[in-house]
């Protein structure tokens, strides 16, 4: 009987530790933060070139991550990349109507992310609104092309 108890405890610890391991994989490895549920302020933005932005890319403000990109599609009317992002609602409420969104790069070749900065207009962007003032991704090939064609003049 005593041995059976020990065995049952061993199996219990095994299953429990497996569950804790899965929680570790969720929280620490995939970065599923429990606080992410608060990121429910939706903003859209159109870019003429999204250049390597992906779903789940970061949205930052002053370098601090405040949200994620949830959807990327082609706007059929303007033939531009239309991005949907979800950001912290307390940050979203402070975005003015003339806020800007620009696509930035971490390092020279690193991942692309969106940097938001707020403007000075008194009207605020509503939940589900669109940021008008955007700056597209800096595409290295285009820069080199411009540089070469300027050199050859």
């Amino acid at each position, binding site marked *: 009987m005593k041995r*059976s108890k020990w*065995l*049952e405890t*061993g*199996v219990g610890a*095994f*299953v429990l*530790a*497996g569950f804790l*391991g*899965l929680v*570790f*994989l*969720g929280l*620490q*490895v*995939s*970065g*599923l933060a429990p606080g992410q549920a608060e990121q429910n302020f939706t903003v859209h933005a159109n870019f003429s070139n999204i250049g390597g932005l992906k779903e*789940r*890319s*970061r949205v930052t403000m002053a370098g601090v991550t405040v949200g994620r990109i949830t959807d990327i599609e082609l706007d059929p009317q303007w033939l531009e990349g239309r991005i949907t992002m979800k950001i912290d609602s307390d940050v979203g409420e402070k975005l003015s109507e003339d806020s800007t969104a620009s696509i930035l790069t971490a390092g020279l*070749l*690193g*991942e692309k992310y969106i940097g938001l900065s707020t403007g000075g207009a008194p009207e605020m962007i509503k939940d589900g609104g669109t940021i008008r003032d955007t700056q597209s991704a800096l595409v290295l090939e285009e820069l080199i092309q411009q540089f070469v064609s300027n050199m050859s003049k």
Partner: protein
Amino acid sequence: MSPLTSLGQKTLDALESLGRSAIFLAQALCHLPRAEGVRLWLRQMYFVGVMSLPIVAVSGLFIGMVIALQGYLVLSGFGADEALGQMVALSLLRELAPVVTALLFAGRAGSALTAEIGLMKATEQLSSMEMIGVDPLRRVISPRLWAGFVSMPILTVFFSVIGIAGGYLVGVDWLGVDQGSFWGNMQSSVVFMDDVMNGMLKSVVFGVVVTWIAVFQGYDLVPTSEGISRATTRTVVFGSLAVLGLDFILTALMFGEF
């Protein structure tokens, strides 16, 4: 016997044993563990799952460490050693943890299951059970199958966690990759539902297949000492080949873009 006849005979034998094993699995799984069955299942969980822990932990640690080391050597050539965490986590979660755990499981637990059940059959314990009215499928087979099904995903989680810890040990503590970018890049690239859960799904499939092969080989063998040794070898060989083949198919279904 002409070669054609022997080819036909082998094919029919293989098909027949495939059919027998399917019927066997269906019969054994129909017996869900009852009150007494739970005790038997716990006992098998201990032998199949808990006792496999040391080998899984040690292998996970070393594989995580060697991926970090190899990855660092390649990535630092591009100045991209910040992506080390991402590489360690993705290769472990998607491929190495389910596959290597299943291979170790076939070698350690699978061969033991085959030999144990095979010896029970050779010493006619299984037929004596039938004689006294105890169903060997319920008493012997079913708890072992369920123990294998449940412990395989748990062992895979252990493998991933310990492997990532090993990668951290080598990458951050030894080679000096920045701790923040190690975790940060990992978190921004690993998607829980895609990467972690697909790895878990793989390990569930591998657990079913490997345990099924092991238990069936034990139940179906020729009850001699040579039969037991052949069946044990077949468990490891068939189990490993099935895992590697299924891994490709599952990967193509899960991550292939079509």
